[in-house]
């Protein structure tokens, strides 16, 4: 039923721009938590929407382009690596859950949030070459579930409104 559509560079550009704006907005409002690395993950709303509406390839491109651009604009090179670790692991998990067809936005996003934080923790552990960072695993796990739930609910609302209009899957 789904056929591979050729999409224009402008299409990908708009999606990436949307995700980039989400990153920017988020960088302006840091969450007041003592543990570094906890964010709402607003850009993931765009990635998940792209995954639901268009497919894995689109979501992957949005995610990677967003991370590289946001990294150089608002962060630094090491930030790019942490984000890639989190972003790619969470996208892999979300794509699997989505493909299984058993879960909606909420569940996919919660699993995505948890795996994103796990991915960052793994890259962080690689950087410092020991596992002491895993002390923060419970906090990051819980935070991943909660932020994932927020983003998932947001996406459910977005898809409810634009999902059937023009972008029917």
């Amino acid at each position, binding site marked *: 039923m789904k056929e591979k559509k050729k999409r224009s560079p402008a299409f990908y550009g708009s999606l990436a721009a949307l995700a980039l704006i989400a990153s920017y907005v988020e960088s302006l409002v840091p969450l007041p938590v003592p543990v570094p690395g906890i964010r709402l993950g607003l850009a993931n709303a765009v990635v998940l929407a792209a995954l639901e509406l268009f497919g894995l390839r689109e979501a992957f491109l949005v995610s990677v382009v967003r991370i590289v651009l946001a990294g150089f604009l608002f962060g630094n090179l090491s930030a790019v690596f942490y984000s890639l670790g989190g972003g790619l692991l969470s996208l892999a998990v979300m794509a699997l859950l989505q493909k299984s067809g058993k879960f909606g936005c*909420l569940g*996919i996003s919660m*699993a995505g949030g948890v795996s994103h934080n796990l991915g960052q923790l793994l890259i962080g552990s690689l950087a*410092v070459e020991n596992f002491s960072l895993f*002390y923060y695993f*419970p906090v990051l796990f*819980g935070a991943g*579930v909660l932020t994932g739930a927020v983003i998932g609910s947001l996406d459910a609302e977005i898809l409810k409104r634009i999902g059937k209009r023009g972008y029917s899957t």
Partner: protein
Amino acid sequence: MIKSKDKKKNDLLLGAVLLLTATVLFLGRYFFREEGRAVQIMVADQEFGSFSLSEDREILVGEGNILCISDGAAFMKWADCPDQLCVHQGKISRKGETIACLPNRVTVRVTGGTSSGTDSIAG
């Protein structure tokens, strides 16, 4: 194709399992926590040294970090990186708690052991 009602049920089930896991992880750490006696400083996989928490002092770690020990707790007083995440992390004193400065690959972890100052003399 699975109905959206079932998807919703699966979502909630997944959420419940994830929240339960998080709770178990939290409780586990809460019940097994204990006050630490020393901090171990690592630079990448090399041990920089261990320092007792009962002795107030400031430690220059490499060239990019200053760790301060006072009142039985340790905190990062200064870091040369732009994000300052480790400085904002505050004090640590319980076993297992960690301050990490990722740009300099420095981790400071509270341990139950004593300082290695005496060990290195003995060794």
